């Protein structure tokens, strides 16, 4: 049955997240971007909302609620509506924890998840992207070679969100077992920060989302025990893992775009030129109506992919549609957001210049649009 109806619980969560985003994330976003630093108090406040732990099993200290990609998409849109950078940082523990919850063996869950059910913010990191500009997730250059009872990882990763502080990295690598291709060849390995042969680079300096620390990893024959292969002998459903990150990215981009729209509406009604509000000029009004059309389009594509993930059907195609569409439209919306403000849009006093940088960065950083 085709339905756009939120459950009562989702309505409540959405309302609460919207309030949090407006009151906490929005005001903290600009200073964090200027300082290129994640505000620890804000991160702890986010942590206290138990966004990640709620959907982890009770056995590891989680809330035991069913994993819900739809609810997460709703939450991520709201967080990014407040601030895309802080929103991504808030969501980042889930990149690691949900992957372990979804694909990990019982031992792996027992070993790595309890930290995410604790009282203190716990960073998690997923290493997907690589330095080459022609990155393709189905053809990773980072390799994993089976060697006795362990795997040897070699390659380079970039844009690893929260990599400056994560204790473990979930590293995606291509199995050198020639029988496997495409997503089937993609495995994930839990690599401890202090593994021999792993070097963690300095925090990267990026165009936007500057509050979010990202690092590069160099893996030089890093040997990890076979027990660190996520999902054990069965491995992971990499297509599903990637579809999940794409949907998350699309949800963040939707929130960012809605933020631009809702900021521009009152601005354009107040700002006057040639005897009337600029919003009364069709050239401006139609930029806004177009934003409205596209924010909704992005959201429905995101929800559709999320619901397929939730129902356990193949969401690959829907996730590709959602993430690519969202990346294109978010860029256009942020671009027009600057245009609506004119010269003021170029000045750092207003958020639109930051959102313009965020939009361009997020679609790459999340490892979504490009992968």
């Amino acid at each position, binding site marked *: 049955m*085709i*339905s756009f109806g939120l459950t009562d619980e989702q309505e409540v969560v959405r309302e609460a997240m919207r309030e949090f985003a407006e009151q906490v994330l929005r005001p903290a976003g600009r200073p964090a971007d200027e300082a290129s630093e994640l505000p620890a108090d804000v991160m702890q406040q986010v942590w206290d909302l138990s966004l990640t732990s709620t959907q982890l099993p009770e056995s590891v200290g989680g809330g035991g609620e069913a994993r819900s990609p739809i609810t997460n998409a709703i939450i991520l849109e709201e967080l990014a509506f407040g601030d895309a950078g802080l929103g991504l940082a808030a969501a980042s523990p889930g990149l690691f924890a949900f992957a372990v919850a979804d694909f990990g063996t019982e031992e792996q869950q027992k070993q790595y998840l309890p930290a995410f059910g604790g009282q203190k913010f716990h960073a998690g990191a997923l290493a997907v992207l690589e330095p080459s500009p022609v990155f393709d997730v189905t053809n990773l250059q980072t390799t994993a070679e089976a060697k006795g009872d362990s795997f040897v990882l070699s390659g380079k990763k970039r844009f690893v969100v929260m990599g400056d502080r994560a204790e473990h990295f979930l590293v995606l690598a291509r199995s050198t077992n020639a029988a496997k291709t*495409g997503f089937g060849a993609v495995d994930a390995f839990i690599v401890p920060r202090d593994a021999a042969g792993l070097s963690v680079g300095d925090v990267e300096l990026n165009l936007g989302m500057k509050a979010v620390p990202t690092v590069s990893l160099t893996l030089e024959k890093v040997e990890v025990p076979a027990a660190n292969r996520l999902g054990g002998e069965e491995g992971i459903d990499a297509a599903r893992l990637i579809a999940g990150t794409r949907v998350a990215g699309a949800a963040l981009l939707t929130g960012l775009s809605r933020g631009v729209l809702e900021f521009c509406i009152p601005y354009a009604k107040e700002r006057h030129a040639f005897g009337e509000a600029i919003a009364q000029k*069709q050239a401006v009004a139609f930029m806004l*109506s177009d934003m409205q*059309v596209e924010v*909704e389009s992005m959201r*429905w594509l995101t*929800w559709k992919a999320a619901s397929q993930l939730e129902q356990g059907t193949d969401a*690959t195609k829907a996730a590709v549609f959602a993430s690519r569409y969202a990346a294109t439209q978010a860029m256009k919306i942020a671009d027009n957001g600057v245009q609506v403000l004119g010269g003021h849009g170029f000045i750092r006093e207003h958020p639109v210049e930051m959102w313009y940088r965020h939009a361009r960065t997020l679609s790459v950083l999340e490892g979504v649009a490009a992968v």
Partner: protein
Amino acid sequence: MIDFSLSENDQKILDYVRSEALVARKYARHYDENEHEFPPEALPEADQFPGVWGLMGERGEEDSGSSVIGMMVTMAETWGDYSVRMRKGRGVGLGNAALGAAGTPEQKEKWGHLLLSMAITEPGCGSDPSLVQTTAVLDEETDEWIINGEKIFVTTGCRADGVVLWATLDRSAGRAGIKSFLVEKETPGFVVAHKEKKLGIRADDTAAYVFQDCRIPRGNLLGGKEEIPKQGSGGFRGVMKTFNMTRPMTAAFGLGMSRAALDFTREQLEEAGVDLSYGAGVHGLSAAAAKFQELEALQEAAELTVARAAWMADHGMPNNLESSISKAKGGSGVRTITQGCIELLGAMGVSRDHLLEKWFRDVRITDIYEGTGQIQHMIIARTILDYSREQLS
């Protein structure tokens, strides 16, 4: 609960409608090239197809709402062809929708069985219907309205049994003076002047009407309210409400055809060896595959805005904004999609050996009638800015 899957019943209905549509498609080219023939009431194959209504009856809790499935059935129909149907329904003209929305119970009873066209547009006015020049003057002695004026671009204007037209009682009253009247064919003074030749949807007859001292009974004013409201345009707005379902429906007409264009393009590209599989990033795709998937995503987005507007209608939510969003998105989307499909297939795309060039022509109307894309954007902008017509026009 948010859900985008189809129930078994939904799927059965859509599969069935598509099977009919595929048959109808065989006749599409004929009626495109023979513009002055009308598709038959029923195709020769109709006796093998029992019709969808039997399947529609069995709907339950787990099935999509009636407006949602209605939109999807519409898309499945035009996926075959815009104009040719296994069976032509009677009484489903645009004027019938107006009669349903504005007519008194007696009027609905009296004219409900007729096929009614809708005539608003005139040579001098389209997007701005408040400029309607056609007049209706009451002859108190005979209790008749006398209609004078010209109407153009009347859909199903030739085949219709009658028309719902907009005429003004008082030009100086603007919108408030405009009323809907029902005029039956064969009424003296009502002439179908000619049939238009068009870019696309050629099997659909589009007519021009002339009314010259055309007298109709006083009771033919739809809704029966003869007085001109003093302030605002409440009555007019009532008339405009008709469009809340017709706008997503119009988008659905176009999206069925753009879906057909995508399906054809996919077949041809795959046959030519282009890998269209999903999952790889843009760097893992050929330029053709990347472009194709971009068009597919656009189709999905547009279809979802239609579903959204319909879902809201099913739940009794006001959907004025969402109706315009779906019409704007669908109207521009189908242009981009069909243009892009031809770009992808090159010479094959423009050849009349295939239907793609026809779909390209047929979908172009989507962004024009039932309010152009610009008019939809104006409605959207006014709504989100909380502006009146005077503040943004």
